[in-house]
C-alpha cells in the first residue's frame, strides 16, 4: 500500500443519452503508485480519458470505487475535491489549455494561487519552476507567442508547480511533432522518477511505450 496514490476497483461509467447506454469504462480495476509513469494506451474512445476524468473527480463512476490518496473519491466534498485538484493533482491536456490572456509566468502563478500560495511565494515558485524546465526566457510571453512544444512545456511546468503528487496527462504529445513529443514524455518520466510522483499518461501513440514504467492497454472501455 505504501506509495499507492490511485486505486480503481471494478469501476464502470455508463453514459445514458436518449435511452441509449454508452459505456465509458467497464469494470476496470487499476492502481498507480508514486515514482512510476503509467501509460494508458488505447485507440480513441477506448476509455482512457474517461478513467482520467474519473480519477480527477470530474465525473462520478456508475459502479465501483475509486480511491484517491487512500480515500474514496465519492466521500470528498466539492470543496475538498477542488482543493485536491489545486494542490495534489497536476493536469496536462492535449491542447495545452493555457490561459491566453495571461503570460507564461501568470499562467503558472494562477495555479499556485489556487493552491493557496501567497503572492510572493507564487512569484518565486513560478520563476523556479520555469528555470527547472529551462523556459525562464518564456516568462513574459503569451501562449499565442509560443510554439506547440513550448506550450506543452509550460503546461507541464504549470502541472508540477504545486508539487503535485499525481499528474494526469491526456494525450500530451498528440498536438506535437514526434521530436517534441518524446521530449515532453521524457520530462514527465523524469518528474515521476526524480520527484517520486505518479504520472498517468493517456495516449494512443505506441511509440511512447519505451518511456513508460508500466503500460495499461485499453479497448472498448476495458483493460485488456
Amino acid at each position, binding site marked *: 500500500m505504501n506509495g499507492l496514490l490511485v486505486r480503481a476497483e471494478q469501476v464502470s461509467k455508463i453514459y445514458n443519452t436518449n435511452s441509449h447506454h454508452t459505456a465509458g469504462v467497464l469494470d476496470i480495476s487499476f492502481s498507480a503508485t508514486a515514482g512510476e509513469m503509467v501509460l494508458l494506451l488505447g485507440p480513441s474512445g477506448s476509455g482512457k*480519458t474517461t478513467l482520467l*476524468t474519473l480519477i*480527477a473527480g*470530474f*465525473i462520478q463512476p456508475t459502479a465501483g470505487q475509486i480511491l484517491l490518496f487512500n480515500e474514496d473519491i465519492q466521500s470528498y466534498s*466539492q*470543496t475538498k475535491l*477542488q*482543493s*485536491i*485538484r*489545486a*494542490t495534489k*493533482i497536476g*493536469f496536462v*491536456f492535449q491542447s495545452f*489549455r493555457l*490561459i*491566453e*490572456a*495571461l503570460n507564461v509566468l*501568470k499562467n503558472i502563478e*494562477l*495555479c499556485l494561487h*489556487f*493552491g493557496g500560495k501567497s503572492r510572493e511565494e507564487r512569484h518565486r515558485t513560478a520563476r523556479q519552476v520555469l528555470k527547472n524546465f529551462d523556459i525562464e526566457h518564456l516568462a513574459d510571453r503569451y501562449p499565442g507567442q509560443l510554439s506547440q512544444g513550448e506550450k506543452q512545456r509550460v503546461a507541464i511546468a*504549470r502541472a508540477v508547480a504545486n508539487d503535485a503528487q499525481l499528474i494526469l496527462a*491526456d494525450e500530451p504529445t498528440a498536438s506535437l511533432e514526434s521530436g517534441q513529443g518524446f521530449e515532453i514524455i521524457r520530462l514527465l518520466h523524469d518528474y515521476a522518477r526524480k520527484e517520486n510522483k505518479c504520472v498517468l499518461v493517456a495516449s494512443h501513440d505506441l511509440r511512447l511505450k519505451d518511456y513508460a514504467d508500466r503500460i495499461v492497454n485499453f479497448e472498448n472501455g476495458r483493460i485488456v
Partner: protein
Amino acid sequence: MYAIKILFHQPYRYLLTTGGIGLCIVLILFLLGIYRGVADGSVEYIRQNRADLWIMQKNTTNILRGTSILSTAHGYVLRDLPELENISPILLLLSTIKMEDKEATVFLTGYDLAAPYGGPPEIIQGQSVRNDDEIVLDISYAEKHDLEIGDTVHLNSYALNVCGFSTGTNAFVIQYAFVSLQRAQSLIDFNNLVTCYCADFKADSKNLLSPRELSDEVPGTVVYTHEKFLKNNIREMESGILPLLYAIAAIGSVVLTVILTLILSINILEYRKDFAIMKALGSPKGYLPGLIINQSSFLVGSAILFGLFLFFPMVKLISKISPEIETITSTGHIITVILVVGMMSLISSFFSIRKLRKIYPLEVYE
C-alpha cells in the same frame, strides 16, 4: 488580474461598454440635477418671500398648479385685522411676452411696489421694478431670448422696459417675470383682482390667532403659514413633472444594468474555456464569481470616471444652449449615484455569475 486582462483583450468593447454605462451615469446625474434644480427653482420664489402668512382663495393649496382669485376687498378686511401687518397683494398670471421677432410665456407676477412681499427673491443684474412701465425677468429667460437691461418687451399693448434680472425664479418649464400690481391688473382689465396676499403677524400678536381662525375672519379665504404653504407647493411640484424624471432615471439605471449584464455574460461565454480550465485546475469556490465582480466593478469604476469627466462640461454646454435648464449637482448626488451604480453592478454580477454554474471542468477535454 485576469479579470481586467480579458477586458483589455477586447479594447473596443471595453470602451463601448464604459461609454454606454458612463452615458447612463451622466443621464442619471443630469436628471437628478434637474430634479434638484426644479425642486429648488420652482419654490424659491415662495421660499424667499418669507411672509408669516399666505392668504389664498378657499380650496386653493398652492400657486404652481392652483387657481386662486381674491378681490382687493379681501385686502381691506386683512388690513383691518389688528393682528396683521405688511399686507402684500400678489397677482399671478400666465402671460406672453412679445419680443422683436418672437414671443414666450412667463409666470407674470404683479406685486405692490410699496409692499414688502411679492417681488423677485434676488436681483442679480439691474434693479427692481420702480414703476408700471418696467419689468424684471428671470436671468435664464433673458439669456435664452438674448434680452439685456434696457431692452423693451411687450405685454399686450404695453411696452415695458427691462430693468433687472432675477434668480431663484426659474421653474424649469416656465420662468417668473415681475411687474407692478397695477400693470398686471390692467392686462386682465380687472383692477380689483389679486391671486393671494402675503402678510405678517404683528410682533405682539403671533400666538393670538391661528391660520384657521384667520380664515374664519376673512370669508372665502384659506390661510397658510409660510412653512405649510412651501410644503404644499413642493408636494404639488413633486407630483407633477418630477415623477417623470425619476422614471427616466430609473430606466437609465435599468439600461445600465442590462448593458453590464450583457457584457459580463458575453465575456463569460467567450472565455468559457478559460473558466472551465480554472475549474479543472481547482479554483476555489468564490474565485470565479470574484472575477466577475472584479470585472463588473472595474467597468463601473471606469464608467463613473468617464461619466463624471463628461458630466460637468456637458452641463455647462446645455446651460449655454438652454439657460432655463437649471441643474444643481451636489457631492451627495454624486455619492448617491455611485452607490446606486455600485448596487446595479452587483445585480449585474449576480445575473452573470449564474452562467458560471453551467460551465463544467470536463469541457477542457473537448
